[in-house]
């Protein structure tokens, strides 16, 4: 009678361009996200969090862990932007960690994936993006952060792309806050995603622009 989990993956760009204030803002953002979610009883009972970072290579810095056990990762910026490798890593982690439903076992909620990047990929990513999109491995929300990010590239991964026009701490803070409220509202029953809006996300704050 184990409860259903809501797997949440944060896929974060830690390439060199994020160094300095932006990465600090991301650190604070993750911290605030955790604090916020831990105050929410539903999130506490359901949400499991994982962090995947990518720079010159991709790394799952935190495996899928329940909120109370979750240890904040050390995030350091530097290196290239191996976006393709990050997508590969994401697929592997989801295949490994997320329970699929069967008659014998209750499946997890559909994973909720937040991808944030501030730059252009430096590796081959197109094919992996197509794979992820066609496999529908979860509800993916991609965030193009800052002026250097390419939102059209992200559209190849998911329909749900948002844009942050700056990498200012306040904008990043708002982003993580929105992530948090999205997580809180996600574990409820919905009709299969082929008939319209797949996710009933809360409206994003003004700093976040939904890319049509």
């Amino acid at each position, binding site marked *: 009678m184990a409860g259903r989990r809501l797997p949440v993956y944060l896929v974060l760009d830690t390439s060199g361009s994020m160094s300095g204030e932006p990465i600090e803002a991301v650190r604070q953002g993750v911290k605030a996200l955790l604090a916020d979610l831990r105050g929410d009883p539903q999130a506490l009972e359901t949400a499991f969090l994982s962090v995947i970072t990518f720079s010159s290579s991709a790394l799952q810095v935190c495996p899928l862990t329940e909120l109370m056990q979750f240890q904040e990762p050390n995030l350091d910026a530097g290196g290239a932007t191996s976006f393709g490798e990050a997508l590969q890593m994401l697929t592997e982690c989801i295949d490994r960690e997320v329970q699929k439903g069967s008659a014998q076992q209750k499946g997890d909620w559909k994973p909720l994936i937040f991808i944030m990047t501030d730059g252009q990929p430096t590796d081959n990513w197109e094919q992996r993006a197509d794979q992820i999109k066609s496999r529908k491995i979860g509800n993916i929300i991609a965030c193009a952060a800052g002026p250097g990010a390419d939102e059209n590239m992200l559209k190849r991964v998911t329909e749900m792309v948002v844009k942050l026009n700056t990498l200012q701490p306040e904008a990043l803070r708002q982003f993580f806050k929105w992530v948090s409220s999205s997580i809180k509202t996600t574990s409820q029953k*919905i009709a299969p995603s082929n008939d319209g809006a797949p996710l009933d996300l809360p409206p994003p704050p003004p700093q976040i622009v939904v890319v049509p």
Partner: protein
Amino acid sequence: MPSNVWFSEVEVRAILWKLGVLPDSQNHDVANWSSIQRNVNFNSIVKVVARELASRYGYAIRLPLGDLSGHVAGQNEVVFLQMILTDLARLVNEDSFTSMKVAGIIEEGIRQAGVRSQVPSRERVVQEIRGKLGMTGEKDLRLKPWEVLTTGLLRERVVDGVADAFAETFNLAFHYRLDARFTSPPSQEVVRLCDRLLSSIVGLSKTHGGVSERIAGIVRQGLSRLVFKKSPAPGGMGAMPKPQQAPVKPAPPRYPNAQPAPYHYPQLPSPGATQPAPPPKPSPQAPAAAAPKPSAPQPSSTRPAQPTGSDMNKLGPTPDNKPTPKKDEHEQYAKDLKAQEAAMGTAAGEGEKPATDAPAAPVEASDADSAELVEVAAPPAPAAAAGWRYLPIPDDQPEPHTEYDARDSRSPQGMPIIGARVRGKKHKHDGTNCDDSFETAVSGNWTILAVADGGGSAKFARLGSKAACSAAVDYLREHLNDHEIKTRDDWNDAFTFDPATALFNEKDLAYVQTAMHDAFRAACDAIKGEVKQRQESEEHTKFLGKPIEFRDLYTTLLIAIHLPITIRDVKRDLIFACAVGDGMVSVILEDGSCRLLMTPDSGEFSGETEFLTEKIVEQAAFPSRVRPFIGPMRAILSMTDGVSDDYFPNEPGMALLYADLILNGIVPVKASDEEIDAALAATQVSREELKVGDVATGVERVTSAAVRQQVPIRTVAALAQRLKLDVDKLIASPALLAAGRLGRPLCDSDDPKERLQVWLDSYHVRGSFDDRTLVVLHREPQA
């Protein structure tokens, strides 16, 4: 028969290992934990150990708050307490959740003290106390409120309340780790909190070499207080298991003969450790009473403060500032436990002198002590509700749905039908409406059951579920009334069907199938009608921010119908079920096993389900959804996924569900006392023991913002654990299930529908916060 079973060094080591104080590698010989647990003294010992440690925690907190100003603490004592506090503060800072919890504990302490307008503001006071305890990094403590707090009797009450609430959390942690208090697993949250507290202790013991020995000392002292109460009489042991005789290895030396250095505060390595530091005795009064302060420290005793039993009862460290569980429950439970222990001859400390030479434990086991020991075992309150709010149904939304619905009736054959629906935890938390509905009816010889679960994302799902249930039931009532099923001697081939239409070949059966299909169409039309009626409604449009449409009323619908039939003079039941969406319809057979009448939700991911739409009811293959069943049934269970998900996998989950309904007194079971005794003979547990110490776990039920009550919830899992039997065996045995019903009832009312409602509203499963609806048609057991 009084018994003097001892704990040998092996057992002490096992206890320390269980507490995580000894590393695993040192203790491979503790596999006999279960036999240690069966030791009649075990529960009492754990209580003492936990209590001792807990009181030290309470003491550690009183000291920096200045409560012990009359006492000059010894150097070692201060160091020890500092360590505890540092550790606690570390724990708190690391983890915002724990921090919240701590704030809740302080709040609770203040509430207990009845502090109102005399002090600046509750928030301020909480902040001050946290600051004083070193839990916040704040340096700018304003001393003024603190002075207000520290003058007068207020401080004493507040501080006592806070310290005792902390201490109780610790106490609970030990009981949990040693499995001494929980008959069924506590909520995940309690587990987490306990683990964190305990790992904090283990952390201490690793960083500071002396602490491990100190904890061992505490365990030993706990043991010595109990074990050596009576002079050892090795020949006179009862039939109780004697774990220390089981191992082949030479009998280890026993206390007190091999008493190592006993627990003593001054054991801490400290340069100035010359005098034993006598812990003072903080006021043992209940914080609500204006307690006179103890005038002087008592140097003759090395025992730390013993918080009063009544304080220790409070398991209320939740941030919601919940009221203390009803006192009489505790008293009743304490009485029960006392009776139980008395029956086992182990009531701790009946005023006998401890026959120990342990210098550090000159403990006079007073009557007060033993009373405390018994009282401390208040039923645990899994912190299931921590963080979950209660907000009433909003009055600013159109067409609210009642919080509860519970109804009963009888089938045409006189079988009881009970149904109930409760608003889910999430809806209570968010202050939104329940989305579930149910409806039952009889028609001719038929019984009709319908349940529906409105989609969580649909704002007017409650209207959809309600309309769907009543329209479908109305349709079937009208069309089944005089419909007769042919008498058949052989049903083997009755359900062959035409692959083109999915309809049964037999006309009378195809009629039923079509009627059910049409009932779903009627339900769909009814929802459309509801939408149409409100399309012009400003109220609804305003609330939705758009005109109402079908998707705002999305709902599932599950229908089951029942008809008694006779096959060659044998009575049988004919049942049809049909469903759109998730949830479950299941038949319980006479042997207690279950058959599922729909496919359990097995989508790749949870949370995606189909809803009743025109597209689905007009599918060509829709009639194939109608599932027939023939057999001797004990019951039909029809439920929304709020219940079926909690019993997953549904096979055999539905059988467990029915057994839980029996255990919680919702459906009856027949077994005489003799039958119960006979069934229990194979177990280690007697009927009397189950009467005084039942298998129920207290679960918090929240019925309004102000009311949180403890409901004793039984599960087959807990009963199986208690009786050390397989769940399968339990389910198949009415006598064992009847035995599991002994003790405190679920609630005062013995009305099955009310009990069903209370149970649905209370039982806890992690991650389960949906509305819950369950309808049961069952055959009463024959005398």
